[in-house]
Every structure is written in structure tokens, then in C-alpha cells.
């Protein structure tokens, strides 16, 4: 038990990055890749130990750790923040998801990465450190640090190995997310300052703001801080008005990077919403629940409609992620245990499924060097394996029962429908009796649109008679098989018995909901 230190888990990838990047490491590609995959595997197994020793029933944070300067003083004492790490049900789940997807991305980057390997693998590991840091940070300031460190490696990953207008979309990605994070910075400073005024202690420690409710703030400040947080996470989660960076970033990123981008980075937005908006300011969430729910519904329907009209395969999958993350928003807006656990489950489910979808798109792109759906046709003819993997993953994203997507969507929809957050809201002091039930019913229409664009894509790409130029479309190679099969295993296993997953984050969510 005592070997499980969160700091080691977080900085292990950084060590890996430094080992690879340093001059002492060989320049030949195969050795680098083998080391990277091995190291990724070690990190994944190490994170599994955390999962094994994690005891879901215990409230609050576990594996807590605080690093102090040699003199025993907290790390940034004048700033009132210390290097505090802690994990609870939700963040541990996302950590394991991160390490799992990074391992798969490393395996999948055998074909799509052809130049500057040392730089690539060190950037992937740096990205992993940043993301693990975000999930494990127990201190608001630390949360921001890791949140912004993640920008640089992602920028390089998209712009150096990407395709098409990669510089434009990489720059757009970094500026968009950074602009989002400054609102979060302002919001954090506001509530920390208000706490300082009330209690005289200037601290960034998360627990002072969450589990202890000694924090009565005026609603105006609360709403502004809430919106500050919400904007930052809306950019990351892509909520509709702020989502335009996602299709560009996905289309231009190489396959493993877009697997990570869709698999993990979007979850940081969702995780932030839970940790900051739901835990710190539940009353404000109660007031602004109509806004959150309506945005969730728009997210689901609008993105699904736009996805139907896409010609580019990756753009379609990108918009499908936007639509799926709308369900997370819906679940969170419901403010009850079922809704929030549905949102958390959906985050994990979408992580696995979208990684699978992008892998499939990557497999196709590798062989045909085109992502335009009209140019692809009948690929299933002489590559049945790819077709079946694609089918299982596509059906998973469709929300087919006995696959992971279904349980998540059910919880979210059931939770949202049965929540009594609001039965109507007033917009410019005109009372609109549209209750959360009606909004959820509208959101469920998204189920049809998802079916429309996914099946139509599947039919145009895989079925029908094969185009002459794709007749040499060979079947899945061992590398791709490993990645796809492991993803499908997770999709099917946690689809069959979702309690396996809900046991981990269930108690945390219910204890969180008790606070509200």
C-alpha cells in the first residue's frame, strides 16, 4: 500500500520523457518505440494497483500526499498553495482511463509517426504527466498549473506530425484553451479572495471549498465565478458555441494524438465541471441548471445534425464526440446521483468509444490516404476484421444495449428525467414552463440522429460494392488488432456488467450529492 504514491504516478511519465529526450538515448526509431510502449505499459499497470487498493466506501480523497520544500514549508507558501495530491472515485477512474488510452496511443503510433520520434514520444509522456496532474490535483493552483502545461505538448503533437492546415488548428487549439483557462483563473482568484475576506486564510486548497461548506458567498459573485469556471470547461468539453476548435484539431492531428485528444482531453472539461462547478458552488449550479441543461440539449442535437452533413470522416467523428459530451452536460445539470454518475460513466464510455472510432479512421486513412467519405466505399469487402471492429465500436457509440455507451446514456437520461432541479425557468423575466423532463425528452431525440449519421457513415464507407482503387485494402495488422481488441474488450465487458464501473465512482458521487 505504501508504495502507491501519487507523485510517483504523475512524474513517472515525465521521467520517461526525459529519458527518451536526452542525448544518451539511441536515435533509432524501433528502440525508442519499444521503450515508450514498455514504459507506457509500466505506468498503466502501476495505475491499476491504485485501482486495486482504492476503497470506494471511504469518503473524501484517498492516497493523499503533500510535497513540501526541503525546509518543510509548503511549496508556494506566499501563494497559499501546496503541492497536494488526492484522488477519489471519479478522478481515479479517469486516471486509469488516461494511462490506458496513452498506452494504446503509443502502440497505435507505429505507422502514423514517421519523423522526429524522440520528440514525439517525449511530448506524449509530457502530455500524460500534465493530464494525470490535472486529475490528481487537490489544490486549485496546482490544477491550473497542470491544466496549462498540457497545452504545449498538445500544440507540438498537432502541429509537427499533423496534416492539412496543422499550424492553424494547433494555434487555434492552444489559444482557445488558454483563453478559456484565464476565465477559470479569474474565477478561482475571486472565490479565493472572498474566502480570504471571510476567513482570513488565503488558501487554494480544494477541500476548504468543497467538503466543508463554511463558504457563504453573495449570489452575484457566485454566478460570476461559476460562469468563469463554466466558460473554461465549456471550451474544453466542447459546449456548442465554443466547440469549433475540436473538428479542426481532430482533422489535422495524427491518429494517436486525436485518440488522446478525444479520449482524455475532453474529459478534463467534464471533470472540471464536476470538481469546480458542482462541488464548490452547488447552489449556483441549482440556479443555473436550466442554462446547463439547455446547452447540453443543444450540444446533443446540433452536433448530431452537423455531423450528418460532414463529408470528412474525422470531422464526423469529432462532431459525434461533441454530441456525446452533451449527455455529460445533461447528466451534470440533473444534479442528482443518477444524473451525475451517468455523466461520469458517459465520460469513461465516450473516452473508450471515441478512441476506438479514431483508431478505425486512422486505420482507413493509413491505407487510403483519404478521409472523404464519398471517395471511400465497400471497404468491408476484403477486410472483414476491420469492418466488424468498426461495427462494434460504432454500435457502442450508438448506445446499443450490452455495450458501455448504453448504460452511461441510460443513467444520464433516467437521472435527468427524474431530477426535480427545475420545472420551468424565467428568461428575461418571462416564465417559460419548459421543465427538465421536456428538455430531456428532446435530448433523447439525439438518440435517433446519432443512429442516422453513424449508420449512414457506416453504410457509405464499409458496405456497398468496393471501389476499384481500394481493392488492395488489406486487413488489420497485429498492432491495430491489439489496440482495437483491447478497446472492444472494455466496451463489451463494462457494457455487460456496468456495476463493475459504478461501484468505483458510485459512493463518491452519492457522497458528493449529499452535500447539495
Amino acid at each position, binding site marked *: 500500500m505504501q508504495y502507491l504514491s501519487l507523485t510517483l504516478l504523475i512524474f513517472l511519465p515525465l521521467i520517461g520523457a526525459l529519458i527518451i529526450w536526452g542525448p544518451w538515448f539511441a536515435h533509432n526509431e524501433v528502440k525508442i518505440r519499444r521503450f515508450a510502449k514498455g514504459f507506457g505499459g509500466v505506468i498503466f499497470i502501476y495505475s491499476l494497483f491504485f485501482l486495486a487498493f482504492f476503497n470506494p466506501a471511504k469518503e473524501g480523497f484517498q492516497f493523499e500526499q503533500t510535497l513540501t520544500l526541503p525546509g518543510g514549508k509548503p511549496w508556494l507558501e506566499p501563494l497559499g498553495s501546496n503541492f497536494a495530491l488526492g484522488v477519489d472515485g471519479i478522478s481515479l477512474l479517469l486516471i486509469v482511463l488516461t494511462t490506458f488510452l496513452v498506452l494504446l496511443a503509443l502502440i497505435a503510433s507505429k505507422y502514423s509517426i514517421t519523423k522526429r520520434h524522440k520528440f514525439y514520444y517525449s511530448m506524449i509522456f509530457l502530455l500524460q504527466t500534465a493530464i494525470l496532474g490535472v486529475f490528481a490535483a487537490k489544490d486549485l493552483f496546482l490544477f491550473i498549473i497542470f491544466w496549462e502545461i498540457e497545452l504545449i505538448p498538445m500544440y507540438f503533437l498537432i502541429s509537427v506530425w499533423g496534416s492539412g492546415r496543422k499550424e492553424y488548428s494547433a494555434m*487555434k487549439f492552444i*489559444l*482557445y484553451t488558454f483563453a478559456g483557462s484565464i476565465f477559470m483563473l479569474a474565477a478561482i482568484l475571486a472565490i479565493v479572495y472572498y474566502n480570504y475576506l471571510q476567513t482570513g486564510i488565503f488558501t487554494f486548497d480544494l477541500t476548504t471549498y468543497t467538503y466543508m461548506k463554511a463558504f457563504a458567498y453573495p449570489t452575484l459573485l457566485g454566478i460570476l465565478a461559476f460562469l468563469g469556471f463554466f466558460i473554461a470547461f465549456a471550451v474544453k468539453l466542447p459546449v*456548442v458555441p465554443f*466547440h*469549433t*476548435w475540436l473538428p479542426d484539431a481532430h482533422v489535422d492531428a495524427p491518429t494517436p494524438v486525436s485518440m488522446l485528444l478525444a479520449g482524455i482531453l475532453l474529459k478534463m472539461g467534464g471533470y472540471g465541471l464536476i470538481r469546480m462547478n458542482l462541488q464548490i458552488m452547488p447552489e449556483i449550479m441549482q440556479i443555473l441548471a436550466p442554462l446547463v441543461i439547455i446547452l447540453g440539449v443543444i450540444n446533443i442535437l*446540433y452536433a448530431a*445534425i*452537423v455531423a*450528418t*452533413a*460532414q463529408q470528412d470522416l474525422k470531422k464526423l467523428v469529432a462532431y459525434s464526440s461533441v454530441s456525446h459530451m452533451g449527455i455529460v452536460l445533461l447528466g451534470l445539470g440533473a444534479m*442528482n*446521483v*443518477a444524473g451525475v*454518475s*451517468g455523466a461520469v460513466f458517459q465520460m469513461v464510455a465516450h473516452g473508450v468509444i471515441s478512441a476506438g472510432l479514431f483508431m478505425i479512421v486512422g486505420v482507413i486513412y493509413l491505407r487510403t490516404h483519404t478521409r472523404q467519405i464519398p471517395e471511400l466505399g*465497400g471497404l468491408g*469487402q476484403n477486410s472483414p*476484421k476491420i469492418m466488424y471492429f468498426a461495427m462494434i465500436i460504432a*454500435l457502442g457509440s450508438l448506445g*446499443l*444495449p*450490452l455495450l458501455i455507451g*448504453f*448504460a452511461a446514456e*441510460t*443513467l444520464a*437520461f*433516467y*437521472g435527468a*428525467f*427524474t431530477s426535480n432541479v427545475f420545472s420551468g425557468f424565467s428568461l428575461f423575466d418571462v416564465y417559460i414552463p419548459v421543465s427538465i*423532463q421536456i428538455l*430531456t*425528452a428532446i435530448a*433523447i*431525440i439525439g*438518440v*435517433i440522429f446519432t*443512429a*442516422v449519421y453513424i*449508420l*449512414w457513415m*457506416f*453504410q457509405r464507407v*464499409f*458496405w*456497398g*460494392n*468496393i471501389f476499384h482503387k481500394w481493392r488492395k485494402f488489406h486487413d488489420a495488422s497485429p498492432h491495430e488488432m491489439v489496440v482495437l481488441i483491447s478497446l472492444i474488450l472494455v466496451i463489451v465487458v463494462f457494457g455487460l*456488467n*456496468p*456495476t463493475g464501473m*459504478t461501484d468505483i465512482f*458510485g459512493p463518491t*458521487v*452519492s457522497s458528493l*450529492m449529499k452535500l447539495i
Partner: protein
Amino acid sequence: MEQFLEFFVENAGAIAALPLWAFLIIVFGQNLGVYDNKKITAWITCTSTFIGLIWSVCILFWTFGAEEPFSKNITWLSAGNIELSAGWLIDNLAAMMLLVVTGVSLLIQVYSHGYMEKDDGYHRFFSYLNLFNFSMLGLVLSSNLFQIYIFWELVGVSSYLLIGFWFRRPSAAHAATKAFIINRIGDFGLLVGIIAFLFFSINWWAASGNIYLGFTSLQPAAEYVLTAAGPVVYCLIALAIFCGPIAKSAQFPLHTWLPDAMEGPTPISALIHAATMVAAGVFLIARAYPIFEASPCVMTTIAWIGAITAFITATIAITQYDLKKTLAYSTCSQLGYMVMAMGAGAYAAGLFHLMTHAFFKAMLFLCSGAVIHGLNDQQDMRYMGGLRKHMPVVAYTYLIGCFAISGILLSGFWSKEEIFAGLYGNNMTLLTIGLIVAFITSFYMFRSYFLAFENEYRGHAHPHDAPKVMTIPLILLAIPSVFIGFLLSGKFHLPSFDKYILSGHEASAHAGHHESLMLPVVSLLIALAGLLTAAYLYHDRFKALRESVKITADNIIKTAKPFYSLTTNLWYIDKLYYCFIDNIFLPVCEFAANFDKFVIDGIVNFIGVKTRFEGWFLRQFQTGQLQTYLAILFSGLVGLTLIFVALNLFM
């Protein structure tokens, strides 16, 4: 004996688990290259279904003895106040359905072994078949509304896979996608209905202690919801739940996918699109009957939708030249019958018709499969004719099917008679529609018989007889199609199907029987009339008579031009949907995509460009001219002083 049957009921889940195991064995067997022989796959599938059949027979015997239904559940998904469980529920309805499903699918599997012999996707076909069996049996066994929704979608997926079995054919691919999307629309309604029902009754379930949305305690829950939600909202919820069966059983607005589903192999059309899956809709209505029963307005809508479907699809079937399409439309109209019966309160009659229909419709489809197989994939009746000489067994079984379906003395007659009896009681207009549809049914069935099997052979392929492995299932299916109706009609103190089914539902036993003898005679006469008109118009023996009287099929078509064009264009429903998609849905998506690309992205880029422009604009002041710098210095200074002195004086 009791414990012996107890064992079977205790783990009835095995019935559904067997096909799943078969599916896994075949899939992994194939992919890992364990075996390649077709016989093994056939044996695995047939044995699993055969054991299932035996199992359901034992369960049937158990139900004779049992008083109240047996149920066993585990919690599948729970969070906060929501406790969703899965398990199985065995009662008379389930026993009956189990028997029908396992029986028909066993025979069809034997038949399809012959049918698919030469197809290279043989193993794939059987794995899909097993997947379908698993989901169908799961659906039949499921114990609550949530679980039935799970298997509801799984059945939809397996039908999608099977329709799109020959996915290389674009039309099959399109039909599969269309089927799944339309089913999905139905599922949406069902999901919303279930969740809304749960929402209003959640504290009742929590208090009542038994599993959420369980079928056994649906009656009190429905009353509670009625009081909680008020009649209007309750009616909406019930209608939403009814959306599921509309899509699945191809009722009026969403029936267009069934005829296109004929793209799949014929055994599939027989199994899924005739006997089992489409019946799932009616099964759900039966299961959720207390919900519908509680609000009269829903019952009437159900009845009327059933009637409309029956009428429309019957008229379309008249003018079809494709053999399988005719049978598909006839399935739609028979399903319309069942739904109409259920809607009108004749709960048992609808189910009875469901059972009999499963047998003879499966047989008809298998016959058509044999015919098509024989004429190597020729489906158009205009190139058939006189096949009775080449395929006697197929022809006679087809004839039996026609008699059964049109309600002449064989099983169809009894179930239809019960439906008419049920209708007679409370709704005369529906009864008249029912009788008209009965006439049309017998007309187009015998028309297809005469076109395909009578007169002389018009096609150019030389037909050969169906092999033994295909004819035996036909014969086996013919037996129940002939006798089952009479055996279970309850006349002359034979076992009565109604009493068996209704024993579980005391509440709905009020459907009284008017023992007037007149109704069966009338329905029989109508059916015979249909037969005679078909014979007159299509049989060669009356050719001379037709010429002399100048009333032939062609000039009827010419005279009833509008009616004819209406039916051939499938009442323009399909065209309506396609025009909606092409002119409304896709343009909206296009507009949304462009809106997203140009407007939202445009704003983002505009902000970028704006800041760069501001930068450029400010840089214009750096002219490099010394004087301008000093001008900036002093004008800045003067400006600041003016502003702040004024500000100070003002404050």
C-alpha cells in the same frame, strides 16, 4: 415431477443463454480457425434451439400447474433513486411465446441450412441467427420494461445485421440502415415512454418493494401514474410506449421498412419479418397491457392504427408482382389485425392470431424461398406459373398457407373468428374494416397462388424441385397451420387458448363472447368470395369467360386508374419520407454544417483577424519619424492631464 419442472423454471435464463453461447462458439471458432465445416455450425445452432424447445415445453407444462408467475431478478444498474434490474419472468404469455419462437426458429434453421448451403457467408449467417435467437428469447423472458427495452434494441440490431447480410448489394445495405433507423425512431418513443412512466411512479416503486417497472406489478403502478400525471399526460406516456410496437411491428406510419427488409435472405424474412420479431411489438402490447388499458383514448388509437395498417397494406399487396413483397405486405396487414384486436380489447384473440399467424406465415415465406431458390433467384410472379407440376410439395403447402391465412377452415379461420367476435362486441366500424381486409387478403393470397403455381410456366429458367432438407420443415410447419387453430379454439371442450392466456390477467376477462353463429359463416363466405374473384381473374380455366365478358385484370386496372396508381406507389408514404429527407432533413444538416463552419468559426477567426488589424493599426503610429514620437509623447501627456484633472475636479 414438480421439482423436475421447478428446475426448468428456476433457471429459465438458459434458454436465452444457449443461443448466445452458440453465437460465441461459432464466432471464435471461425476467427481462430478452429473448424471450417458447415455441418458443425448447423449442428451447434440446431441443438441449442432444440434444447430451448424442450425447455419451453417443460415450462409450458409447469405453467399448467402454477398459480402465479415465477420471477428471478438481479440489479443490473443502480445509482441514487434508480434501481434497474434484469432477470426473467415466466407466465402463461411467456410460455406460449417461448414455444412459438423456439419452434419456428428450429424449423427455419433446418430449412436455412439447405437454403444457405452454397453461400460463402454461411458461418456468418448462422452466427447472426444465433444472436437474433438470443435477443428474441431474452425479449420474451424479460421481467421488466427496462430489460425489454434492452433486448428490443438487440433484436433491432440483429435484424439490421441479417437484412444487410449481403452487404455488397447497395440496396441491401440501404434497406438495413433504413430498417434500423426506423426501429430507432420507435425505440426513442419507447424509451421516453418508459422513463416518463418511471418518473411519475418512482416513489410508488420505491415503496412497493418489487423491482422497478416489473410487469407483474404494472397494474397498480399504472393507476398510480394515472392519478399522479392526470389523464392527458398519461395518454401521452402510453402513446409514447406504443411508438415502440408501431416501429417494430411495422404499423401504419413506420411500416415502410418491412417490404424493403425482403432484401435479406428468405429464411430471415420468414423468421424475423414474419414470425418472431415483428410479433415482438404485439408481445410488448400484451406485456404492457395494463398501461394501455388504463386510458380508453390510447386503446382506440391502437385499434385504429391497427385497422389503418391492415387496410392500407392489404390494398398495396393486391398490385404487387414480387412474391416476397406480397407476403411482406400481408404480414403487415395481419399484424394490423392483431393490433386492432388488442386495441379493441380482444386481448386473447390478438395473441391467438399471433400464434397461428407465426406458423402459417413462416411456412408461406419458406415456400416462397423454395420457389425463388428453384428459379435461381427469380422473384417476379410474372415469370413464374405452373410450378405445381415441378414442386408439388411446395405448391400444396403454399395452398394450405393460403387457406389458413384467408381464414378458410384452417387455423387462421379460428383466430380471425375470435377477433371478429371480439370486435362485434364493441366496435362495428372496425368489424366492417376487418371483414373488407379479410376479403382482400384471400383475394391477393390466391392471386399469388394462381400466378405462381397455376397456369403455364412463363419464366425462362427451368425450375427444379426443392431438396429434402427444405421440404421437411414445410411439411412440419403445415401441420400446426392446419390443426392448431381448431385444437385450441375451446370448442367441443378442447383446451381453449383464451382461458389459458387470460388466466394470468383476471382483469381483462370481460371480453364477452357472443355465441351468434352468424359471424363465422359470414367471414367464411367473404373469404370464399375473395378466392373466387382471384380465380376468375387469374386462373386460365376462366380465360374464355373473361374474354367474353371483357372483365379482365388489365382493364380493371385501366378503369380504376387512380386506385391502381395509389397502391403501386405504396400510397406515396415512402415517397413522402424520401422527399422529407431529401428536401428538408439533409438541407437542414447542410445549413447547420455551413452555419457552424462559417458563422461560429467565422466569429472566432474574426476575433483573431480583428486583434491583428488593431496591432497593424497601432503600428502605423510608429512612422520612424522623430517628430511623431515626440508628438505622441506630448499629446499623450496633455490628454492624460486633461482627463485626470477633470476627473479629479469632478470627483
